[in-house]
């Protein structure tokens, strides 16, 4: 398994606050990496830095060994890294299909993007079929349940033909049945050849899905390993207990 | 050197006025996420009301302050309850509120034109021509009085925002609009109140302006722009930030006279705006104006 995405000493400071503090991480081809940690640990900030939404304060980001830190969000999407948002952000006045078509038109390498409406339509429908929203393609995002909107977020991200997908709490807030479906969906995404980093609070989901788990606390990486190793790590337990207390 | 000192003093005095007019705009923007373009009309209208009170009823401009504050507070609340309330907020609604308040400004401008014609007006009191000496330079007395009133207003505002419950709530929302609902506050009343306070500050700024400068129905446009520059420079968080922003603008304008032809000094505030936006989108002081 080659290293697809790699971060070296990635940091993000807001004034004096070290939201992400010199975090090293990597993601291998075809892997699912779980990213957990208490509230405010810097998980979403790390995502934002990797996706280019905000520039890193320090550190390197490498995709296929090529430097990409400091790139704009859209350029990173073109290179093949796409994120979803913890609080879903559909384009409210675009139909569900059109939401996905935006990704098909603008994501990924120039040569692979949809060039025609017809092509974008087809790709959009195929992805909506994949996430289970095909019947609603012509409706608007506001008509979807939270689970539906999260699926739309995933479909729109997938439309950009990512090699790495950053999923920010796509399971959280769903009921048990929906959660189970979402977990299957994420497996399906991986089976399409997309490598995944997922932030998740729902432990069952993240532990079950992840090949490897990384734990952040106060911006620092405090543990890494498979689910059992991480769950047994005293520092992790302390971090979560400290959180609860 | 003498010129430099003189300009410096006039800049500081001007900054007081700038802070008052900017705070009115910034407060409304911070809490409601609406740029009140009618602010320009309010400043202009207040100048005319002050002029009317003085020329018709013989009321001294400075004694008219309570009247102006109350009148424009009520105007602001009515404006909010009458129209602004119905507009969508946030990114999508921004366009609509911008256009609507712009329309209100145009109507106010036209109204002033019909009532008072397009000629310049100025308020002349028996002390208009008095001047006093600061650090050896002679300064118009009215400018000093305006400065003192502005500072007192800002101090009062600061106390209101830091000591009272409502004031704290306003500040909290202005600093963190994401906090969304305000616990224990009647949101609509709270918004109306904020709009009223912001508008009455605009009114006060108009009054102070009228005691120093001549004005006509188009007045207020430049002041609106300058207020916005100050808000961008100073952030929305604190009175101190706004005051610093106002100082920066006032100094830039005053000293620009030394190097630029006079007709170009009007462009200074705009150039400053663009430069600051490009270099420090978060504002020079305090927190970001916009997420």
């Amino acid at each position, binding site marked *: 398994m080659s290293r697809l995405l790699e971060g070296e000493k990635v940091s993000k400071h807001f004034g004096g606050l070290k939201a992400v503090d010199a975090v090293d991480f990597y993601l291998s081809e075809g892997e699912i990496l779980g990213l957990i940690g208490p509230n405010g640990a810097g998980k979403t900030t790390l995502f934002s830095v990797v996706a280019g*939404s905000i520039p890193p304060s320090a550190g390197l980001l490498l995709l296929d060994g090529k430097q990409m830190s400091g790139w704009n969000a859209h350029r990173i999407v073109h290179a093949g890294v796409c994120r979803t948002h913890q609080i879903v952000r559909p384009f409210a006045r675009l139909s569900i299909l059109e939401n996905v078509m935006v990704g098909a038109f603008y994501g990924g390498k120039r040569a692979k993007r949809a060039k025609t409406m017809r092509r974008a339509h087809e790709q959009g429908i195929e992805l909506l079929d994949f996430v289970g929203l095909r019947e609603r393609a012509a409706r608007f995002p506001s008509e979807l349940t939270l689970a539906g909107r999260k699926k739309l977020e995933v479909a729109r991200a997938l439309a950009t033909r990512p090699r790495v997908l950053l999923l920010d709490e796509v399971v959280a*807030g769903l009921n048990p049945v929906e959660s189970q479906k979402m977990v299957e969906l994420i497996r399906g995404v991986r089976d399409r050849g997309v490598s995944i980093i997922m932030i998740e609070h729902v432990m069952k989901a993240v532990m079950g899905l992840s090949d490897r788990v990384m734990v952040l606390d106060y911006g620092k990486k405090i543990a890494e390993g498979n689910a059992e190793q991480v769950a047994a790590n005293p520092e992790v337990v302390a971090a979560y207990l400290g959180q609860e207390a | 050197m003498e010129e430099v000192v003189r300009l410096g003093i006039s800049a500081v005095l001007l900054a007081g006025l700038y802070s008052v007019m900017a705070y009115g705009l910034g407060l409304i923007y911070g809490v409601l996420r609406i*740029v009140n373009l009618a602010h320009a009309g309010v400043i202009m209208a207040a100048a005319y009301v002050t002029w009317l009170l003085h020329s018709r009823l013989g009321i001294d401009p400075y004694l008219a302050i309570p009247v102006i504050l109350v009148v424009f507070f009520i105007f602001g609340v009515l404006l909010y309850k009458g129209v602004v309330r119905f507009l969508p907020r946030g990114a999508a609604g921004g366009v609509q509120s911008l256009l609507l308040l712009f329309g209100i400004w145009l109507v106010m401008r036209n109204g002033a034109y019909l009532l008072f014609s397009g000629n310049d007006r100025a308020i002349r009191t028996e002390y208009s021509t008095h001047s006093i000496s600061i650090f050896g330079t002679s300064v118009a007395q009215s400018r000093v009085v305006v400065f003192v009133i502005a500072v007192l207003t800002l101090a009062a505002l600061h106390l209101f925002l830091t000591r009272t419950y409502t004031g704290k709530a306003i500040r909290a929302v202005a600093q963190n609009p994401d906090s969304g609902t305000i616990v224990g506050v009647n949101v609509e009343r709270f918004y109306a109140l904020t709009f009223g306070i912001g508008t009455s500050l605009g009114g006060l700024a108009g009054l102070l302006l009228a005691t120093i400068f001549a004005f006509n129905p188009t007045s207020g446009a430049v002041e609106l722009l300058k207020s916005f520059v100050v808000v961008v420079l100073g952030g929305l968080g604190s009175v101190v930030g706004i005051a610093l922003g106002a100082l920066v603008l006032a100094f830039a304008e005053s000293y620009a006279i030394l190097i630029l032809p006079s007709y170009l000094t009007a462009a200074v505030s705009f150039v400053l705006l663009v430069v600051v*936006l490009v270099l420090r989108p978060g504002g020079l002081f305090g927190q970001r104006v916009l997420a």
Partner: protein
Amino acid sequence: MRQLTRWLPEWASPWAVVAFVFGFAVLYSLPLVISFDSYTHGIITQAFVFAAAAMAWNWLGGYVGQISFGHAAMFGVGGFLSARLLLTTSFPFWIAWIVGGLAAASYALLWGHPTLRLRGPYFAIATIGVSEATRLIATYWGDFTGGSSGISLPISEGTAKFSLYWYALYFMAFVVLLSYYLRKSRIGLGLLAIKEDVDAAQDVGVSANYYQDAVLFLSGLVVGVAGGIYASYFVFIEPGDMFGFERSISFLLMGVIGGVGTILGPVLGAFVFVILQEYLIASYPDLYLGLYGTLLIVVILFEPLGLSGLLLRIARLFGYRPRVLDITVGDTKLTAMEEPEAVEPPESDVEPARKEAKA
């Protein structure tokens, strides 16, 4: 019809093309069939030019959602540069217009590039400053603009002036096509995404900065050319009129009256505006700002889509239901009828406590 479809680019629906060709033919032959007096001729030519400018304003204000209160700056730059070129060189009209337009577009980029990058109302406020600063500079730069006394072009009444009708028509027709393209092609979808949520758009690969700059450039270009044609037709121009605040508002108003964000609304808005201006404002010159303001307030409060929205309402009374999109894939046919009005995104179900420390 099917034959036609095959020849057309995807974004052009065959019916729209038929309507376009028909409309163009009618407007083209109008002065040949009916002989206008020079007053009517002038009004119609003016309406064509303003329609183009209003559509260009709408690309920014409606398609991308960045309101400009300062398009007069580009109108003036284009107008004065073309006028100077026509005075000092022997260029044909259209070259002078295009040069003027390009200069106006570059000028727009100069100040727009930094301000468009920021979200919120920065751009709108900046435009107020830009147009004010530009007007001042233009008024004092007498060598170029003639100062407050303006400049006159050496164009006589007669055939040359008469032919401007068709130039203006070609120009408007071209801008109509561009308006269609910018809305109906893949670019239109990207622009809508930017308007809805800049960040989310960038996160799916839309280069928001690039597209906003490009739209501003095109908008400046068209408004600059409009300024050039206007100058050529009215022969006399002065900075107070070309760069004036009222000029900026007029473009905005045409867009808003016609329907912000619609494709052809601004054309409608421009015609209504010109008629209003000629018949109402000429009689009550003291009231025009108030009238503009009142129109803005009424439209925003009661029909944010302006005349287009009104027409749509009337059409709905007669049972018309606009199709938002038709999707046929395999044997499934999905049709969305009517866009829901001003969709409010539902409250997020994710509890706020989950929000992490963000920027």
